[in-house]
């Protein structure tokens, strides 16, 4: 599956490089495709009769995962900042977008500086692309036999509620896909708040 993902993304890249004429049309097309995909993932959720009971029972305990993912990302980007030319505060700001490049890139370009916006855009875009590669591999790790395979969506950050939900759904099972969606939704709400907070410390 990882091969397929690399192959298709690479194919898209080559097509884009040689035929860049449609680049303006691609954003709305991807948005529509995403919403369609979410509809079908929801359809799959809806057919699982035991799901409601499952969420009622385990829902609150699933909230630990976005918290851990957030702390891990912030900690990681603080450590990265120690070794980079940019400041630790700048590095942790980039990390606090949790993969949401379309938000953090333009926001930091406008509010802080063009280079930092570019780094934020690239780092978070890379996070999303890397997630596609890691999910099938992490799905094979058996840590918790009956539980949610939370390792699979930990690289996804905020993207596990939309863009990378499909690949998580495909590599695991409905239970994990639900947890991934919840995690992505929480991180998507957290990312703008943290970004605003860190930016306010900078300017």
């Amino acid at each position, binding site marked *: 599956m990882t091969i397929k993902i690399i192959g*298709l*993304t*690479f194919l*898209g890249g080559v*097509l*884009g*490089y040689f035929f*860049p004429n449609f*680049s303006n049309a691609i*954003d709305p*097309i*991807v948005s529509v*495709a995403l919403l369609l*995909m*979410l*509809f*079908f993932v*929801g*359809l*799959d*959720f809806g*057919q699982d009769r035991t799901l409601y009971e499952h969420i009622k029972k385990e829902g609150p305990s699933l909230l630990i*995962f976005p918290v851990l*993912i957030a*702390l*891990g*990302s912030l900690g*990681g980007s603080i*450590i*990265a900042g120690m*070794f*980079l030319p*940019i400041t630790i505060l700048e590095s942790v700001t980039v990390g606090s977008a*949790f993969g949401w490049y379309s938000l953090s890139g333009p926001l930091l370009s406008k509010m802080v500086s063009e280079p930092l916006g*570019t*780094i934020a*855009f*690239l*780092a*978070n*875009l*890379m*996070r999303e692309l890397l*997630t*596609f590669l890691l999910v099938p591999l992490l799905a094979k790790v058996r*840590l*918790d036999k009956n*539980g949610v395979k939370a*390792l699979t969506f930990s*690289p996804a*950050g905020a993207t596990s*509620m*939309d*863009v990378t939900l*499909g*690949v998580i*759904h*495909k590599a695991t099972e409905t239970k994990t896909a639900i947890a991934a*969606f919840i995690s992505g939704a929480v991180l998507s*709400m957290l990312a703008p708040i943290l970004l605003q907070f860190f930016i306010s410390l900078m300017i």
Partner: protein
Amino acid sequence: MSFLLLCLLFLTLGFISGQKLKMAKKLTRRISESILFFILISLGYKVGSNREILNSLNSLGLQALVICLAGVLGSIFAVWLYLSRRKSSDH
């Protein structure tokens, strides 16, 4: 932010439809998988067609890559630590 609400809306719409109508699980997975593949090609296309991204890859890209890897590894590590500790406390 409004796009997030749209995402939630479509997922809920799908959820409600899923409870009302019976559709083969295989078929729904097939369709969402096809859309996923289409999205992958589109994401690749977006990067490949954007000369600005390609040009900034060497200069700022390395710093971006380091932050990306650090964040991803940090998140995986935090979740792994939690899951493996929970597993050992179960026994």
